[in-house]
């Protein structure tokens, strides 16, 4: 991945062009492919870094009063004072977008983490114990999978008062199923390897085999599933908020922002929809891009299939 043969590198593009004249022709194809991938990874990484910085630093510099209303400035188009314009009750959209992204990221990260832990535990247990445990657990997973998970999520979130935690619980409880399947199949394939036989013959207990040999073996897959799940969980949070079931409507969240912008969009005001939409799409694509690059690294055979 690192192309450091020509000394200090400031940008990706010049490095790929210069050696092309001295290298054999057949290498150019590979190098071009590698460099587009590098550009993609670097762009994604830079975007993720900017987003992380923004959601961490901006709230320190500019506190947001979620309920402050200034009707004199309502629905102003983007200007220097308000780069993203203002919403229908005169609140600055840039600030609300950053705060919204912060909430969505928080929900996405925590929910993905919880879902991965549940999925890994269930999948590993099913595979390690096998037999009836495996059959019953995996049929339960199938049953849950047969219900559209947005529907299930709505059902869970509707049992609580609106807030961040119900949304996290709802997203986490509906997203562990695929991880459980991935981890189970991975553990099943590891379990049949001779080195597990060797460990048993060396006196390892069942617990030690799981902890020392099986779980570390599925960690890359589970970690990848977790990162890939973050954008998905963020979209889910936005969907719930958009439907009015997620976060309380005064709280800035990307779903809420798009939801309140619907009315003004029909009146021709484009900015309250566009900016929250971009804030949802760009960071999640960047995260997915990074996760895709990671997947290529741990499983190079998938290089041809693109991410997402």
């Amino acid at each position, binding site marked *: 991945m690192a192309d450091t043969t020509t000394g200090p590198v400031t940008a990706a593009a010049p490095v790929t062009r210069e050696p092309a004249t001295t290298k054999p022709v057949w290498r150019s194809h590979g190098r071009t492919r590698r460099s587009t991938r590098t550009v993609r990874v670097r762009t994604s990484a830079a975007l993720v870094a900017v987003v992380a910085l923004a959601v961490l630093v901006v709230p320190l510099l500019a506190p947001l009063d979620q309920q402050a209303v200034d009707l004199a400035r309502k629905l102003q188009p983007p200007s220097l004072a308000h780069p993203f314009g203002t919403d229908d009750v005169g609140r600055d959209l840039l600030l609300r977008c950053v705060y919204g992204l912060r909430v969505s990221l928080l929900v996405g990260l925590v929910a993905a983490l919880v879902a991965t832990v549940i999925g890994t535990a269930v999948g590993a247990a099913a595979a390690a114990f096998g037999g009836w445990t495996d059959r019953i657990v995996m049929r339960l997973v199938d049953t849950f999978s047969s219900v559209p998970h947005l529907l299930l999520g709505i059902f869970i979130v509707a049992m609580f008062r609106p807030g961040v935690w119900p949304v996290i619980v709802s997203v986490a409880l509906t997203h562990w199923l695929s991880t459980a399947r991935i981890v189970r199949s991975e553990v099943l394939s590891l379990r049949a390897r001779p*080195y597990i*036989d*060797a460990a048993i*013959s060396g*006196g*390892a207990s069942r617990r030690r085999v799981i902890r020392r040999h099986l779980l570390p073996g599925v960690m890359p897959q589970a970690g990848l599933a977790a990162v890939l799940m973050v954008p998905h969980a963020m979209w889910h949070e936005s969907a719930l908020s958009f439907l009015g079931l997620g976060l309380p409507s005064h709280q800035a969240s990307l779903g809420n922002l798009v939801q309140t912008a619907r009315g003004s969009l029909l009146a021709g005001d484009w900015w309250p929809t566009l900016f929250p939409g971009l804030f949802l799409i760009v960071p999640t694509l960047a995260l997915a891009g990074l996760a895709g690059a990671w997947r290529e690294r741990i499983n190079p055979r998938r290089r041809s299939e693109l991410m997402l």
Partner: protein
Amino acid sequence: MLELRSITAGYERRAPVVRDASLTLAPGTSLGLLGPSGCGKSTLARVAALLHRPDAGTVTVDGQRATGWRHRAPRAQRTAIGVVFQQPRLSADPRLRLSELIAEPLRATGRRSDLTAHVGELARTVGLTGELLGRRPHEVSDGQLQRACLARALVLRPRWLVCDEMTAMLDASTTAALVAVVEEYRREHGAGLLAVGHDRVLLERWCDRTVRWTEITGAG
């Protein structure tokens, strides 16, 4: 004694790979088992090491009849038998350094006290030097990895050794070195050996007695 009596084993009940196989191994002796590829000798080796439950028949280790297999076998019983497999690549956890690989049975059985000294000594015996011990399996050759696997099988000082095509992937000099290590260990500890393979010349030179697959199974 390590005794296998009328073993029928396989992966599907209706089509067993091993039918009615019996063999007996006295302490300190070595037995070579010759058979063509795919005949079921590896399955029989796994049964002998208590790693595969047979559909029928009994295994007796030092006068004690085995009732459980894999994790269900008592720890003392399954660690009494050291196993070396054919493919070192697959029988080494890719995340462990060679020194950890060799030490793993000591850790797993809670014998950490003489770990470093014992592992170092054993590594020297199988011909692995300091720098190699810090590497992971993908950074060493098949031969070096198989040396580590042999060291792992010997680290708990088993009374029985099961070598399943231990040298099939290796060149002549490594084969000679590993066979010498096994023989040295057996002389010192009086361990019995079951060597499974298809190389008649090697097994006949290595073992006290060599039998053909057809001689020990019901078919023969």
